[in-house]
């Protein structure tokens, strides 16, 4: 059987949701306990094991040994969905490319935020493709080969024709 004070300190640090400060430890142990030596003994007990006693802001805490972290790490892939605005913008670019930003806004009937453009650019789904020879020479946007790959398309021709999609064109 280990030293009683050591067991108590071990249990408290283990069960606590936050680092255990010296005051909490002192509250738990009898007055005659030498806190420093209890902590030192606890640290020694865990030295080299899979778990370490570390001192963090405000107290003591058990943490798994840092060298084991890569082995314990489990990566869970959770593919994220594009926000609605981004998906709509992407679809419009796919069907109307090359297309300017004002044209996209006209088609969507809503303004296009920079964040949406950025997210599509960052995902590599769209790229600028020259400029339109009209006042202000606005950038033309088009989809990328990565766009085709992400959607499993061999080419833009794989997308259903607009006429097949919009059998009853709105506003007609």
């Amino acid at each position, binding site marked *: 059987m280990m030293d009683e004070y050591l067991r108590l300190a071990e249990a408290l640090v*283990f069960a606590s949701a936050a680092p255990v400060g010296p005051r909490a430890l002192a509250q738990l142990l009898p007055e005659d306990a030498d806190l420093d030596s209890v902590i030192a003994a606890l640290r020694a007990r865990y030295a080299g094991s899979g778990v370490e006693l570390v001192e963090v802001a405000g107290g003591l805490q058990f943490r798994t040994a840092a060298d084991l972290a890569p082995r314990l790490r489990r990566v869970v892939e959770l*593919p*994220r969905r594009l926000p609605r605005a981004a998906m*709509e913008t992407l*679809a419009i670019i796919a069907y109307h490319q090359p297309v300017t930003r004002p044209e996209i806004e006209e088609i969507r009937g809503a303004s296009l935020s920079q964040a949406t453009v950025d997210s599509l650019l960052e995902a590599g789904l769209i790229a600028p493709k020259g400029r339109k020879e009209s006042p202000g020479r606005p950038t033309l946007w088009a989809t990328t080969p990565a766009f085709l790959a992400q959607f499993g398309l061999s080419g833009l021709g794989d997308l259903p024709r607009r006429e097949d999609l919009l059998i009853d064109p709105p506003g007609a």
Partner: protein
Amino acid sequence: MDSTEPDGPGPEPPGESLVLRLEGFEGPLDLLLELARGQKVDLARISILSLVEQYLAVIEGARRIRLELAADWLVMAAWLAWLKSRLLLPDAAAVEEGEQAADVLAARLRDLQEMRRAASWLAARPQLGQEVFARGDPEDFTEIDRSRLALDVPGLLRGYLAAIRRAAGHVRYRPPALTLWTVQEALGRLQAMLGRLPDWVSLERYLPATLGSPIERRAALASTLVAGLELARGGALRLRQEAPFGPILVGMKQEEG
């Protein structure tokens, strides 16, 4: 009563005190079990008859002091009274019927007692979060990788259709703009036409011929009048109205001399 027993009424001898504490029992079966425990024998060998008598005594006592009793207490009392009569009848068939019923009651009491003990057994165990504690600050090594995009063609098409439909829905009704003849336009037309029409013709002759609706004509007449007044102020022409609401006539500026 052992210390691990769940809190409950202690095994007091039945009597007035028990009557007053009926509310502490969870029901007739609870009281019967308590009375049976009072017999201090194995539940398999309790005397059902004396149990019945004790229960009926308690209920009788409760009624004497006019304690309101819930129906289930009285139903049990009636059933036990019937059971007692069966057990005491000098008729062998009735006694057998009574004994079978007594066995059923004893079995129910045993079942309840078993579950009481099971509850005590559970309560006596060190419970997580009560006596024993798990890691208070667990570490999670799960890494969520959200770098990949979940994209599919149906989603793309839904997005396209949603955008087109919404845009169509957003086209607001705008009344066709009125082509109003502005004062500027009237000024230009007056200046261009001055001298091409004879003197003292109606102002209306100066209106453009393309104006269709009466409201457009009246608006044009108003702006042309304003334009005419402006030109008359500068002396470029003269205006004359011979009667109130009569036609306004336009004349050339007076030749000097």
